[in-house]
Structures are given as C-alpha cells and as structure tokens.
C-alpha cells in the first residue's frame, strides 16, 4: 500500500489492475474462464472444508457449480410485472442497536460504510457516495434456503465499483467480508465479487431500501441463497483469509452449520 496517497477521491475511471484483471478473466467464456480461474482453489473449495461425507459433498457441489458458472452468466432477470406484492421480511427486521436507531432517525445522513483491509486506499463511504457510483438495477428472485422465493427490483452499486472506489484490492486479497449492524458477517470469494449482479443495494422496487429489507444498504448475491444476502451492512473489509473470523468457516451461517457456498 502506498503511503504517499492522499485522501481518497472517487476515481471511477481508473480500474485498479488486480480487480480488472479478475473481471477480465471472469468475462472469458466457459473454457477460458475455467482454465484461468482454475488456478485459484478459492473458486472451487470453501474456506474451511467440513469433515466426512458432508465436506466431500460441499466441495463437489461448489466445484460443479463453479465449473458450470465459469462463464459468469447472469442469474435470471424478471419483468416488472413479476415483482412480488409484499416481499417478505425475514430474520432481523429492525436492529435494536442504539447507534443504528440514531442513524435511522437522521435518515442515514451520517451513516458511513468503511471499506478497509487489502485495498489500495481504505476509505469510508457515505450513502450519497455510494449512490454516485455507477449503479445497476436488476429484477431478480430472492431464493431463501427455508424454501420461499420472491421477486423484487434492486438498485445498487456493484461491489466491484465500491472496491474500485477504494483504489482496488491489493495482492493477496481473497475474500470480501461484510459485517452487519446486528453482528452477522459473511465472506464472499472473488468469483462472486467480480460478478455484475453482486451489488450493494440501496433501493428496492424504486424506493429507498425499507428497514425490514436491510436499510440503508444490503448485499445482493443473486446466485446464492438468501442467507448470504446480508442486510443492514455496517462495513466491508478485504482479507486474505477467513481464519480469524468467527469459527473460521467463512461466515456466520456456516459457523452455525449451514453451507458456506450457498448456491444450492
């Protein structure tokens, strides 16, 4: 990391080398993508492999999914008419955290998202900063591991753009860890980070993200189950290992015993 750099400006034009190379790799169609991303174990194996038959199945599931997805296709996008009338709010619907309640009352004007860790220029983004980044709008199905699914329109900044705003990731970056106001965290690997539909959403069905759906900012990870799509984001950090987080499995859901790779 360069010490001479001054405070971050939102330099959106310049794509940092490392991320853009990954982005490039991932845009190569199936076979090329397979060969290139094939170099990285992270693409095929969870951060911590469970013991026994379940662990073998985890690796089989993740690697077959990733082989099939090596061309980085988009998850199905739907029509506005498909949008669910009342999208469920599950789990945490209004964090009791005092600081969060204060920010909420002020319309999230003072809310900040620190972006730290293995990035060129660690920084802290306001909601307006994030809204000024290039955005993406997508109508997708939220697939909850419980069994339900519902379609909504999400608008947000691609995670890749947020990392670009921080000057891009530095060498050794393997996972992006997202923390939430209510103490959840999930690590996601670079294969998902570079995907265009991986966005930090601040708008849902055209309005500001409702509290029950994770205001002011939530993750959309369209090719994985609901529990990976964290609400109430508090901070992001880029790391080279998940070992120091929770039980080291790579996320709070996998700490509890759910799949880390939630493409199923």
């Amino acid at each position: 990391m360069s010490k001479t750099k001054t405070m971050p400006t939102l330099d959106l034009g310049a794509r940092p080398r490392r991320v853009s190379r990954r982005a490039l790799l991932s845009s190569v169609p199936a076979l090329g993508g397979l060969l290139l991303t094939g170099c990285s174990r992270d693409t095929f194996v969870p951060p911590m492999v469970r013991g026994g038959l379940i662990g073998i199945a985890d690796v089989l599931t993740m690697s077959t999914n990733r082989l099939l997805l090596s061309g980085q296709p988009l998850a199905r996008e739907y029509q506005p008419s498909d949008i669910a009338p009342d999208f469920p709010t599950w789990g945490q619907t209004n964090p009791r955290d005092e600081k969060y309640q204060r920010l909420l009352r002020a319309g999230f004007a003072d809310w900040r998202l620190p972006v730290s860790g293995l990035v060129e220029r660690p920084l802290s983004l306001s909601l307006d900063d994030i809204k000024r980044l290039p955005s993406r709008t997508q109508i997708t199905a939220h697939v909850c591991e419980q069994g339900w699914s519902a379609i909504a329109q999400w608008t947000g900044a691609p995670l890749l753009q947020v990392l670009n705003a921080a000057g891009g990731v530095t060498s050794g970056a393997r996972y992006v860890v997202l923390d939430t106001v209510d103490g959840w965290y999930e690590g996601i690997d670079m294969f998902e980070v570079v995907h265009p539909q991986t966005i930090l959403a601040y708008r849902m069905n055209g309005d500001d993200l409702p509290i029950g759906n994770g205001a002011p900012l939530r993750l959309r990870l369209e090719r994985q189950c609901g529990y990976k799509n964290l609400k109430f984001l508090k901070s992001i950090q880029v790391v080279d290992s998940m070992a120091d987080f929770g039980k080291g499995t790579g996320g709070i859901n996998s700490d509890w015993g759910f799949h880390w790779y939630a493409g199923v």
Partner: protein
Amino acid sequence: MRNAERAEAQTCVTGREDSVVTSERSRAGTKEWIARHSYNVRICHWINVIACGYLLVSGIHIFLDFPELYWGHTGYQGYPAIFKLSDWGISWDDAGAMGNRMWGRNYHFTFAWVFLINGLMYVGWNMVTGQFRDRMLPRRDELTLVNLRADLRDHLRWLARKRTSTTSYGTLQKTSYLLLIFVFVPLLTLTGLAQSPGFTAAMPALLDMFGGRQSARSLHTIGTVLLVLFVVVHVLEVLAAGAFNRVRSMITGKHPLPEEGL
C-alpha cells in the same frame, strides 16, 4: 462356489430360458441355485436404498421448516398456496418444531451426491454390458394386451410370483423399473436442481421447464410422494414374490430354483 460366481455373469435375470443352472451342494444340501443379481446391481441397489432413506428423511425436515407449496416463481408465507400443511391439522409452528432445515439441507445435498454417483455407476454398468436390454426391455411377445392384462390381474391378486420367474423379471416389473430409472428419477433430480440459485443461473432453461422455482419445489415434493408409493408397492411385490428368497438374492446374488420349476 467358484462355478456359481462364474455362471453369475451370464445368468442374472437374463430372461433367457437357457440360463445356466448351478448346484451348490457343499453349502445347501441338494438345493439348486441360480445366480439372479450381479455384483453391480446388488451393491448399487443397497447403496441406493440408504441414499433414498437419507434423502427422504432430510427432505421431510426441509419441507417441515416451510410447510406450504406454491406454483410459479414466487411463494412465501401469505402468498396463495397450493398446499398448506396447516389445512391437515399441523400448524406452521408445530411443523417448524419437527423440522430442522440445517440438518436437512446438509444431509439432503450430501446424499443427493451419493444417489447421483451411485445411480450413474449403476446405469453406466448396465448400459455398457447391455443388461438393461437383456433384463429389462420387454420382449415383443410380452407386450401383447393379453399378457399385460394377465400380468396386471395376477399382481392385483397378490400373485406377483406367478409373473416373475426365477430367471426373469415380469413384464410390468420390467416396465416399472425402466420408467423409474429413465423417466422418473431424472425428472425428480431436475426438479431438485431447478430450486438451486447457482444451478439455475447456469441453466435458466430449468426454470422454464418447470414453470419456476416454486413449481419445481412443488413437483419435487409430489414426485417424492410418488417415489414413496413406488417403494411401498415395490416392497409389497417383493413380499408377494417371496420376500426371503428375493431379498436374499439381492444380497448374495443367488436364488434357489423352485422344485416345481417356475
């Protein structure tokens, strides 16, 4: 013993009248035995039974944690459902207390792999060796209305034994195995995959094929009920045909030849 093993390769339920008959005096007196099931079929069959058992129990756990079914892409609590367990006297909370989706998901996806790999090995072996054709494809002369009607009538009268000889499967038996293996199980697998957000990103055609994720979930559940019915009938048939000999033959491979020479 050696003889019996060597003979086995050619004689398992081949449907041929000239099946080699071996006698195994050393072990079973003067009883005459026929090799009915090959190693491959026996091993795969019992692995499959274990995998199906785990898939069923874990699948029930997953279902109980969200005990409603919907049609289309969308479905959640409060959305118009096509099936509600609460209509059958089990409330959402009671169902949730019985089901454990974490355990369920972990074991469902693990034994889905066991089921798939085992199934592919079974199908591959039977394809390569031509066993499906020899043992399961009904012969032309079997597919007459008269024969099918007689087959059905005997089954309904608990006379499966009459239709399935020691050397070959009966016509309905053959047909139901083929439908199960080549139509039913592939569809059940696809309705499972059509629920996976990762898999459907790679193959969105699966969503169109079944009309959406919730339709796929409903069809997967209905398919499971049908599969359970298949297994119930399957086991009843084994009972009707002589459970001890049939199950023993699925374990040891050998089946005694009946004195009356059925």
